[in-house]
C-alpha cells in the first residue's frame, strides 16, 4: 500500500515536475509567474487529442500537441508579457491571470465544456516491483519520458550556446545584453522550452487519466507552481525534486489522511515550506 502510493505519487510528481520546470525557467529568467502555464498544458493535450482523432497517427498527434503548446506560449510572451517587462511584478502577474482566464474560456468555446476521452486505448501490462508495488507500462512510459526530458533540458541549459545565454540572462539581464546576447531571443527560447515541456506533460496526463477538458490545466498548473517554489524557484533540480515531493505528498495525504482534501495537501506543503525554509528545498538565493 505504502509503496504503491509512492509509485503513483512519483508518476504524477514527474509530470508536475515537467510543468514546474517551465515555471521555474520563466520565473528565473523573466521574474514573472506565468499563471497561464496550466492553460498551455491544456492546449498541448487538446492539440494531441484532436489531431489523433482526425488522423489516428500517434507521433503526429504528439508533435501537434507540442506545437500548439509552443504557439500558445510564444504568443503569450509576445502579447501579455513582453510589453510589461521592467514593471512591478504584480502587473505581469495580473496580466497572466487574465491570460489564463482568456485561454481557458476560449478553449471552452472551441472544444466544448465536456471531458473528452483519449482516442487511443492503452492496455499496458503491469510489472511487479519486488512484490511490494505494481507499476503499469503506461506509468513507466510517463516516468521515463519525464526523466528523459529533464536530462535533455539540463544538458541543453548547461552545454549549448542558447542554454548558456539563458543562464546569463537570468543572472543579469543588462550584462548579458552588453556581452552581445540577444535577450529577446533568450526570452523566446525560454518560453518555447517551458511550453513544450508543459505540452508534453498535458499529453501524458490526458493519456493517464483518459480525460481532456478545458479546465484540466488549472489545478496541475497551480500545483506545479507550488512545486517550483517548493524546490526553490529558478533551480532546475529544485523543480524536479519539488514536483516529485509534491506528487508523493499528495498521494500519501489522500491515502492516509483524507482523499477529499487531496488538492489541499500541495498547498499545505507549500505554506509549510515557505515558513520553514522560504528559499525552497534546493534554492540558494531568495
Amino acid at each position, binding site marked *: 500500500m505504502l509503496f504503491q502510493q509512492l509509485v503513483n505519487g512519483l508518476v504524477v510528481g514527474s509530470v508536475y515536475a515537467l510543468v514546474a520546470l517551465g515555471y521555474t525557467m520563466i520565473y528565473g529568467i523573466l521574474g514573472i509567474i506565468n499563471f497561464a502555464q496550466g492553460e498551455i498544458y491544456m492546449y498541448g493535450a487538446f492539440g494531441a487529442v484532436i489531431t489523433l482523432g482526425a488522423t489516428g497517427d500517434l507521433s503526429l498527434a504528439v508533435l501537434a500537441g507540442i506545437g500548439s503548446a509552443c504557439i500558445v506560449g510564444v504568443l503569450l510572451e509576445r502579447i501579455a508579457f513582453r510589453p510589461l517587462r521592467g514593471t512591478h511584478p504584480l502587473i505581469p502577474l495580473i496580466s497572466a491571470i487574465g491570460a489564463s482566464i482568456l485561454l481557458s474560456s476560449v478553449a471552452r468555446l472551441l472544444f466544448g465544456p465536456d471531458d473528452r476521452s483519449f482516442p487511443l486505448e492503452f492496455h499496458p501490462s503491469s510489472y511487479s516491483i519486488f512484490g511490494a508495488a505494481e507499476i503499469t507500462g503506461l506509468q513507466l512510459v510517463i516516468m521515463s519520458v519525464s526523466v528523459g526530458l529533464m536530462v535533455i533540458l539540463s544538458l541543453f541549459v548547461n552545454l549549448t550556446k542558447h542554454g548558456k545565454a539563458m543562464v546569463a540572462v537570468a543572472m543579469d539581464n543588462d550584462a548579458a545584453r552588453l556581452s552581445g546576447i540577444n535577450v529577446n531571443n533568450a526570452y523566446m527560447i525560454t518560453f518555447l522550452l517551458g511550453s513544450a515541456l508543459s505540452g508534453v506533460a498535458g499529453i501524458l496526463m490526458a493519456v493517464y487519466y483518459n480525460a481532456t477538458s478545458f479546465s484540466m490545466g488549472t489545478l496541475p498548473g497551480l500545483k506545479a507552481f507550488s512545486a517550483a517554489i517548493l524546490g526553490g524557484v529558478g533551480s532546475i533540480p529544485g523543480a524536479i525534486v519539488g514536483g516529485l515531493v509534491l506528487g508523493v505528498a499528495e498521494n500519501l495525504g489522500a491515502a492516509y489522511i*483524507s482523499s477529499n482534501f487531496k488538492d489541499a495537501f500541495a498547498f499545505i506543503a507549500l505554506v509549510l515550506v515557505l515558513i520553514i525554509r522560504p528559499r525552497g528545498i534546493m534554492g540558494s538565493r531568495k
Partner: protein
Amino acid sequence: MSVYFLHVLILVAIYAILALSLNIIVGFAGLVSLGHAAFFGIGAYLSGLLMIKGLGFVEAFLLSGFITAALGLCLALPALRVKDDYLAIVTLGFGIIITLVFLNLDITGGPDGLVGIPPVTLWGKPVYSKWAFLGLTTAILFVMILSAYTLKQSKIGRAWAAIRDNDVTAMFMGINIYSYKTLAFITSSFWAGLAGSLYAHYTAYINPHTFSMHTSIKILAMVVLGGIGSITGSLLGAAVLVILPEVLRPLADYQDIFYGALLVLLMVFRPQGIMGKVKITEIFGRGR
C-alpha cells in the same frame, strides 16, 4: 424601480465593500492577496451558521467580522514572512484550502451549500424588503468608506504607505513592518467578513462555489480596474464588474473571454486603472 435593478444595486454595494477591503491590502499596504474570497466566504458561513444556531442578526454580523479578522491574523502571521509573488501564491493556496474546507465539512452542507439562512432582523423584526436591505448595505458601505478615508490619513495609513513605497526605508524610520502588514490583513479580513455576512443573509443560500478562486480574482480585478489604492476607484471597479456581466448576459458564453482580455489589456495599456492618477510602478515603488 424594478426588483431586479435593486438586486443588482445590492450586489454592487456588497462587492464595493469587498473591493475596498481588498484595496486596504493591495492599495494601502502594497501587498498581494489572491485569496480574498476565502474571507468573504468565512464571514458568510459563520454568520449564516451563527444565526441558524439562534443568534440575532447584529450579534452574528459583528461576530462574523471579528472571527474572520482573527482568521486573517492566523493567515497573516505565517504568510507575511514572504513577499510579492510568494505571498500571492500562499494566499491563493489559502483560498483553495478554504474552498475545500467548505466543500467537505458537514456543518457547511458540503457541495450542496448552506440552505435556509434567516434574513436580516433589525429591532426584532425580519427585514424582507429589498429597499431596506439596500439601505442597510449602503449604510455599512458608507461607514466603510469613511473609515477607509480616515485610516488612509491616520498614522497607520501613512505607515502602510511608507512600507508600500519602500519597506527598507520604512524600517529605518522605526516602523514595525511585520505588525503593520499584519494589521492590514486583519482590517481587510474584518470588512470582508462583514460583506460575507450581508451576502449570506441577503441570498439566504450560499455554496462553496461562490467563494472560489474565481471570485478572489474578480475582487482583485475590481481593485485593479478602478485603480490600485484609489477609494473611488474600488467603488467604480465593483460597479463596472457587477453591472457589466448583467448587461452582457445574452453573451454569457463570451463573458470570461471579455474578462480575461480586459485584465491583459488593462495591464498593458493602463496599469494605473480608471481612477488611478499615478502609474502603478510609482505606487509600488521601483520595479525590479
